[in-house]
């Protein structure tokens, strides 16, 4: 087998990033669109129905016109699986940055990434250590983008609960949705990370948002039902549909610790996975 060169990896990753962002910004994943259609069919509140109807019209129009679904095109969070034989080199991260910069011009994306304190805008959605790139081993070379808008990201929360408070996990997640109210553009999806360390729980919560939302286990369904009982509804205007799904990921943790992270996702739950072709 020929050795794969850094420049081949750079080009392939850049192309995959560009392509994934283009798909993600214009077309919602089918499971998300299906959940929104199901919510519209089940909703009885006339205001909530009208809001969901506007959202569904918007999704259809974005697809027809090739325009971004939302004006907040977010910041790209990138997940890569790396099969055996592909070297983990800086070409991967550089390829992502190149793909993001190209997509910023071509899709186009709103330039959202700024320096954290000076607030200088890089103009290309890249910055120091941005976009975030998470790499894990896998059977195939794939790249997934999750463009994350700030409205929902800003109301996400993390808690270091006491180990004796395991019953409080559900309360904390529901409380996070209550505090967020209409601000994250509901109906929302909740990514929940339980356990690990402080940093790990936040990553688990983000990874949970990559999961398809057409199935939930009993624990996830219970929290989802609790959040919907709040009656916040689409855009905080009331209704039965506050939360489309809850997805939970767990990790082992220190006997003296119980981190819980809740990453909130707006209805525009954009994600796309493409194969990196070498």
């Amino acid at each position, binding site marked *: 087998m020929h050795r794969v060169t850094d420049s081949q990896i750079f080009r392939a990753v850049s192309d995959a990033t560009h392509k994934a962002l283009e798909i993600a910004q214009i077309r919602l994943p089918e499971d998300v669109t299906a959940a929104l259609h199901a919510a519209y069919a089940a909703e009885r509140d*006339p*205001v909530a129905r*009208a*809001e969901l*109807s*506007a*959202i569904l*019209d*918007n*999704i259809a*129009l*974005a697809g027809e*016109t090739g*325009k*971004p*679904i*939302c*004006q*907040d095109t977010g910041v790209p969070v990138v997940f890569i699986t790396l099969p055996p034989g592909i070297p983990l080199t800086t070409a991967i991260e550089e390829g992502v940055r190149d793909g993001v910069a190209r997509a910023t011009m071509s899709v186009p994306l*709103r330039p959202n990434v700024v320096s954290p304190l000076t607030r200088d805008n890089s103009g290309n959605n890249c910055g120091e250590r941005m976009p975030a790139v998470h790499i894990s081993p896998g059977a195939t070379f794939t790249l997934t983008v999750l463009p994350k*808008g700030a*409205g929902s990201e800003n109301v996400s929360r993390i808690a270091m609960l006491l180990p004796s408070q395991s019953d409080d996990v559900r*309360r904390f997640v*529901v*409380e996070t949705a*209550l505090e967020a*109210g*209409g*601000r994250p*553009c509901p109906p929302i999806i909740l990514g929940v990370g339980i356990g690990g360390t402080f940093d790990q729980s936040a990553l688990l919560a983000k990874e949970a948002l990559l999961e398809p939302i057409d199935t939930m286990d009993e624990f996830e369904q219970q929290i989802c039902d*609790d959040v919907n*009982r*709040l*009656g*916040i*509804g*689409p*855009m*905080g*205007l*009331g209704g039965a549909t506050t939360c489309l799904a809850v997805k939970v990921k767990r990790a082992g943790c220190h006997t003296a610790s119980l981190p819980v992270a809740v990453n909130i996702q*707006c*209805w*525009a739950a954009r994600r796309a996975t493409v194969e990196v072709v070498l």
Partner: protein
Amino acid sequence: MTTHLTTPLGDEVLDLQAGDRVTLTGIVYTARDEAHLRMQEEGFPFDPKGAAVYHCGPVIGENCVVAAGPTTSARMNTLTGFLLDAGVRALIGKGGMNDEVLGLLEGRAVYLAFTGGCAALAASRMKVRGVWFEDLGMPEAVWALELDHLPLTVGMDAHGHNLFGDVAQRAQAEFVRMFPK
């Protein structure tokens, strides 16, 4: 039932109730924080009587609307009184506004909610008709946008009803019932 409104707006907005659905046709003027401050200092570049002010920082392409979803209205809570005093009849945005604004709306104007994130829908129902204060930058400038039946919800009416506030209160009460402590 949907009420069709056309700018400039008059006393018909007084008939609206929180929760009603409306469509809005005609010119609206975008304004965020900076534009509010500028208009307070220098006066209105447009006739405020019967006008609709849209809390929005749009992305404008070659004389067309690329994206013009609503921004969070609460940021403009303290900057709203002079608009209503000058005859503005409708504020448009997302998330609602505070009790002070609710009081100011009474007997004269309404707050209309546009669905957050609906960029493609906005672009399909809006045309660019003019711009002022361009030196503030694209999102902060005042853009005159012509709407074609933009679907909106009456979030706050002229009779002191605030749908956002009611929903938040009920949610809080339900939370306490679920997790008493």
